[in-house]
């Protein structure tokens, strides 16, 4: 039997764009005039889907539109989607920070949210006092906190500083302390937004471990938003995919992530960029193409073969020390390598730079390319999330190699030397 602990029905949220100024008051008055006559809000009809890149006359957008889903007890639900998909808005509604424009959410338990650690810390108060205050803000009673304070302090690893004002803490310590408080919350439903992106590696590991305990060991329901697919995959058994404020799918995390990543990969070998948008920059990219060494565009690069990336860019005025960088990450945004050109002084004009490599040492799969243009340390342009490349294992298949998905990101072989010694 399904034990549904949270149910969202037709959740929508509308936002008004632009500045709040004198124009707003006429809308407010109009809305009020409709309301007292018992008519529907005139501005609810005119919202558009939330697509940040298209320009439109409508001042209203739907950050969320008709979201329906159910969460079962003990489920760890990941919420994924691109920027602007409505993830954070959904969490804000869930944690009652803002209310939905239409629809309702019903729950069978208390919801506590952990949207950003350290909110409500007072810098003049000691660590211990802040644990009490922050715990109370998150909905704990003083008694509950007192019974757990030793565990909290131990988990944070700040024993030595616990009676020192928080303003003397390093930022890492503040975060540790804040996460420790939240980790010992005991609501039936916990809402978490990107908190694991803080702290050092050791603490991140500890935090993820704690999250796993909470969901698996203690059987609590967790809703989790993150851009870090690796963490989502590790923590969540089910996931929901949102796109432009609309519900796309809910299912097993692997399936949803797979679908999401596939969807965001456009299997192109040439990417062109709209000049108009970038015209006020010192330099901007016009075109990026993935090719072989002869300059033919290629869709897939076989493992171990030569390949090249050609970047066409425009310099709008004379610039010194211009550097073009090329970065590569996997689809989980794990950085693999960065390579860059030597600093050059360039006149105004259109340029072309090619990055080449004789031997592509990546394993099969899809990778993301990041193009950056900078002057010294100052970033002029940074393109990520837009360019993808595919590495194929066609050759290895022919050679009946043992390379497969699990053999890692890098596939170039080390030299081996085998001899009989006995």
């Amino acid at each position: 039997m399904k034990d549904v602990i949270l149910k969202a029905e037709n959740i929508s949220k509308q936002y008004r764009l632009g500045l709040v100024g004198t124009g707003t008051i006429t809308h407010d008055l109009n809305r009020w005039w409709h309301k007292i006559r018992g008519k529907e809000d005139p501005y609810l009809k005119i919202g558009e889907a939330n697509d940040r890149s298209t320009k439109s006359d409508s001042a209203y957008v739907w950050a969320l539109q008709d979201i329906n889903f159910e969460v079962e007890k003990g489920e760890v639900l990941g919420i994924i989607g691109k920027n602007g998909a409505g993830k954070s808005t959904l969490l804000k509604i869930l944690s009652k920070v803002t209310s939905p424009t239409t629809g309702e959410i019903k729950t069978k338990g208390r919801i506590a949210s952990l949207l950003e650690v350290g909110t409500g810390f007072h810098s003049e108060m000691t660590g211990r006092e802040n644990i009490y205050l922050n715990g109370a803000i998150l909905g704990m009673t003083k008694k509950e906190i007192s019974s757990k304070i030793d565990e909290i302090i131990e988990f944070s690893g700040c024993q030595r500083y616990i009676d020192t004002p928080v303003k003397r803490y390093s930022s890492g310590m503040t975060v540790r302390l804040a996460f420790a408080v939240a980790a010992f919350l005991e609501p039936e439903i916990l809402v978490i937004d990107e908190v694991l992106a803080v702290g050092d590696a050791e603490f991140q590991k500890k935090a993820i471990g704690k999250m796993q305990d909470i969901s698996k060991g203690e059987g609590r329901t967790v809703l989790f938003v993150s851009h870090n697919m690796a963490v989502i995959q590790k923590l969540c058994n089910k996931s929901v995919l949102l796109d432009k404020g609309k519900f796309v799918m809910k299912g097993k995390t692997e399936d949803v992530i797979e679908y999401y990543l596939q969807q965001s990969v456009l299997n192109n070998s040439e990417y062109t960029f709209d000049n108009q948008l970038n015209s006020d920059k010192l330099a901007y990219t016009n075109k990026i193409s993935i090719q072989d060494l002869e300059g033919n565009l290629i869709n897939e690069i076989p493992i171990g073969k030569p390949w090249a990336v050609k970047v066409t860019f425009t310099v709008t005025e004379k610039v010194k020390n211009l550097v073009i960088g090329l970065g590569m990450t996997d689809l989980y945004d794990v950085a693999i390598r960065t390579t860059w050109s030597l600093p050059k002084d360039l006149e105004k004009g259109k340029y072309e730079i090619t990055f080449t490599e004789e031997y592509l040492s990546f394993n099969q799969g899809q990778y993301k390319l990041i193009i950056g243009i900078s002057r010294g340390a100052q970033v002029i342009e940074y393109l990520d999330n837009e360019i993808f490349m595919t590495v194929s294992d066609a050759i290895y298949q022919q050679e009946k190699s043992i390379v497969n998905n699990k053999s890692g990101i890098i596939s170039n072989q080390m030299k081996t030397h085998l001899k009989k010694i006995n």
Partner: protein
Amino acid sequence: MKAAEENWLYTISSNKKLIDLNFNEIWRYRDLLLLLVKRDVITLYKQTILGPLWYFIQPLFTSVIFTLVFNNIADIDTGNGVPSFLFNLAGISSWNYFSACLNGTSDTFKKNQGIFGKVYFPRIIMPMSTILSNLIKFGIQFLVFISFYIYFVYFTDGAYNTSITTAIIILPLIILIMALLGLGFGMLISSMTTKYRDLSFLVAFGVQLLMYGSAVMYPFSLIQEKVNEGKLPDWVGFLIEYNPMTIVIELFRYIMLSVGGFSLSKLIYAFTISILVFLFGLLIFNRTEKQFIDTI
């Protein structure tokens, strides 16, 4: 199965009740309220040399200046046998409580937008904690007043007409009226400034101006005199007379110094007004708290 599914504990929706004051919820968060009060009190004068002495300095210095300006220079008569310093200290202590409540709560949403944008707890906890921490401050200033009262009555002979009246039993009611007025106006202003900031500019000097219309540095009888003499327009006299803060401050001085008069009908009037202001503020506050994070 069907029945079990309908058994929801909480609902989040856009429906707004007119006044949605959930006492159970506030009670559940009582520890937060107390911790916030504690925070306000202990962090106020951290890293100052004089520390809590500032609690005394501000009303004392203001009283001295008021006495010099209004009594010694402008010659306002505070009544026979009533030291003007004591008269001013009484007015300032009570006025301070009201103005601190109003100022402290009038930027609730703006000041706490970071935390309100992240976590939910009953929003009213914040202004309530301001009212309570100011009550502690008022308590301290009241003790200062009592010490000076004792000094003037027992160690000087200028205060022969001064005594604490039995009406002191209504002191808690007077404090309640001030708290309700401060909280009500504060909630109202903080809600209205989330979208349009205009009001917040008004508050800063508005409170200052209101003090002159609340009989803080002069007895109300003086206003009546001037109106009768025709030196002050009738409507000004009317406004000052029916300003609830005038009534509260006059009452406070009547209780502590037995100057001015006591009128039950005016007390009831002030109490009614304070309840109305509070309810109206609460109503607007409730309407705002669900949406303000989108407009601030």
